[in-house]
């Protein structure tokens, strides 16, 4: 069975889709992720991640937005589902909960 937890890269892709709203498709997600992380990623990686997220139910997609530049081919435009939103929130909360558990002194004192 496919897990319902979010991997790091999956989370980045979900966030990018969230930022892009109505314009989230392969190339734009790739650029968004690269912009924020500064890491290069290949289109096929992005594509397979988005498809995987769709299979997990975190994203839904529709076809649209053919342009001349694309040789008249349509885009697959992604949108976050409510399940996706929920799991993003969970991931965020998990992080902040864990942040809270780091002892303040240790952190701010820079002893590490």
């Amino acid at each position: 069975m496919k897990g319902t937890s979010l991997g790091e890269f999956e989370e980045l892709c979900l966030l990018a889709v969230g930022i892009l709203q109505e314009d989230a498709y392969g190339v734009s997600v790739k650029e968004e992720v690269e912009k924020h992380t500064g890491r290069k990623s290949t289109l096929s990686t992005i594509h397979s991640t988005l498809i995987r997220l769709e299979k997990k139910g975190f994203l839904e997609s529709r076809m649209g937005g053919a342009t001349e530049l694309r040789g008249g081919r349509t885009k697959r435009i992604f949108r976050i589902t409510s399940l996706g939103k929920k799991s993003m929130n969970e991931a965020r909360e998990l992080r902040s909960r864990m942040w809270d558990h780091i002892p303040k002194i240790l952190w701010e004192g820079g002893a590490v």
Partner: protein
Amino acid sequence: MKKDEPPKWITRLIEWYCHPDYSKEIVGDLQELFFKWKSEKGPLRANILYAFNALLFARTYNSRFLQNSSRSNHVMMLRNYFFVSVRVLMKNKVTSAINILGLSLGLLGFTYIAMFIAREQSFDQHHQDHEDVYRLVLGPLDQNIGKYAITGAAMAPSLHREYPGIRSFTRFRRFPSLVSRDDQMFYENEFYFTDSSVFDVFTHKFLEGDAKEALKEPNSLVITESRALRIFGSSKNIVGKTLTIDNQLNYVITGVIDDVEDNSHFKYHYLASIASIPTHHNEPLRTYQMTSWYAHYFYTFFRLEKNVDPMQLDQQIRSAAKYHSDPDNYELYGTNMGLFLQPLSEIHLDPLWGEIKQQGNKDTLSILGIIAIVILVLGTFNYTNLTTAQSIKRSKEVGLRKTLGAAKAQLIHQFIIESVLITLVSLGIAISIVQLTIPYFNSHFNSQLAIWTIETLPILVFVFVCSLAAGLIGGMYPAFIISSYKPTAIFRGIEKSRKGISFRKLIVLAQFAISMILISSTVIIYQQVAFMKNTELGIDTEQIMVIPTNGNSSINSTFELLKERLEQMPEVAQATIAELTPGDLFGGIIARFEGMDKNRSFPTTGVSFDYMKTFGLKLLAGRDFDVTITSDSTERAIINETLAKQLGWTPDEAIGKSYDFGGDNVTPGRVIGVMEDYHFNSLKSPIFPIVLTIRPDFFDKISIRLAGGNVADGVEKVKEIWQGQYPNWPFEYYFADDHFYKEYEAEQKFGGLIFSFSLMALVIGSFGLLGIVLIDTRHRLKEICIRKALGAGISNILKVLSKEYLKIITVSIAISIPLSALFARNWLQDFAYQMKSYTWIILCAPFIVVLVALVTVIVLSVNAAKVNPVEILRDE
């Protein structure tokens, strides 16, 4: 817009292997990125990135095959075989690399040769109904074979009249001319006079004008698209415009045709109507050349009716020449020539005397064909050999599979799939290398090969099928050997099966022998070419520049002035004008010398004064032509030693003998000198009799011997003088020695091809040896270590390890020497002058292979011998 798009075939590839649900968006996305890359990084890198990213999409999750396939057991097994094969390949990196490299090289050579042969065989077949087109050729009746490509102008019309079945004919008279319009001037070598029916025989697309009418009128001209572009900068609205020929004739353009295909046995750029000849300024052209059965200046082609048996017609016209001339004339011509038909498509590979350009060679093709097969077999053998040798390693896998219920057939399938996979990977590599190297191949061998065209599609399919077959056959033997192991024997540890060893030895032996033969053949070809180039010709071609007069008929009357001006300069030693320069083809002229009762044709060339001085020819007896003696200008001849001998004279006896030019008792002459023999043509043909006479109406080449070291300077000075005297005639020249050495181009090309392929064979062979030695020493590691433990030194172990290979090498030398000798003898037969001795080449060349082999064996053996026995024997 079209050109900006990413490579089509990659797009098609993605669409093919990606799941149809996703392919559209993937291609769209990639295309978007492609344009971005292109603007940022340039088209080359964009193309590479596009291809690379496209490849990354070949993941299983969106592949159409795996998603759609029914998950039957067969499919699952196939998948399993595939994965196991990939794992095995990755595990044995060195042997896999050897296998793949060897096979890639083999397939590379094979693909190139297949393309080359197919190209050579495709000549002249783009014309509609080319199988009905024949060339009229001449040949001696007693030999019953066509030998000469050039025929008389009068033949075609009478044959067309007298024999039914000839649908149309066309004649070509090559006549290099100066073409000019306004201030543009071009010497055009591909200028022909031809019949109006030419477009019924040869298919052409008319960009402008009408095929039927174009060449009917005098002074009409059809030009090719490329020439139209060159002169007018466009191929439209050209019909009706006028071009000036030789600064004195005005021809009207009546048609523009597409360019002649590269794979044609001759090319034309200008076709002038044959009806223009009667008003042409060249006298021989408009008189006897146009009317004679015996003056041979034309190429004649027939298109036959569909219902005609060409063989029968060929027989019928055989002796037509006899009926068309009065008996005296026929006797006078004296050579008893017959007419023959040669199929158009055979011309390129079966060229005759007098072809316009260098044609192909059937023997070369068959030798290359054999080499192609040999190289492919060598590469395949490597695979068979290495896999068999490695089989012991895989025996445990086989044992396990068998225990778990695998049938023998299934195991065979697995190994064959493995070998086919390797072959396909190699084929991919080979084709990529072809793609990358094809421009270099083409420029080096002066060919026009291309891979991604419709014409080469069948070749690619053929290569694909051949490589699949090679993979199947190469995998068969190891498959049967490995799958026949008994599990019980394997697991009990009786694994040292020595099966297949003798077969393997045989393969290595064959590889060595073939490499040796190819290498000595290469050396022999190169040596023969070098020998021909270095032989003293007896005629000095160095520092001689030749200026063709190209229809400039004013030269004959003004040459003396030019000569005077040229010879005043310190840069010029001598200047002369003549019909031919070294390397040109001789024409025969009828003549009779004293004591002969019949006329005969003698190779004769028209020269002027100082010809002998310019070309450094030496006199054995008599004197050179003298400008102060008037009779020298028409009635005197200088002959060479060979001719004197043929006539039964010593050089001194020959002087003063009578000589009848034309054999018609009209121009009685005398022999005034005998020259030392010299090679006027390449050393492929023997020295033939030569007659020199002063014949101004034949002159069309000025030869200038430059003095001093600075040739470029001399050329510049000559150019100045030329332009001063003939401002309307562009200055074009070549060097006599370059022209002469062109005769060896075919041999050099052939040598280069054989060299490349023998190098390939050698590399494949050494790869094979490398693999075998590698595996062998690994198997014998324990033996080596025990020997070492018992006190054997490195040299001792080396001896043990290389003994077997030394035997193989010795036997292959013994096999290769007689075969190389056979090749050398057959190939050299075509040359009248052969290099002195080639025994040393045949004896020494194999040692290049031996050297490579020994280095391989010794390096690997020393490595093995250096192993610390403790590490290997610890497990025992």
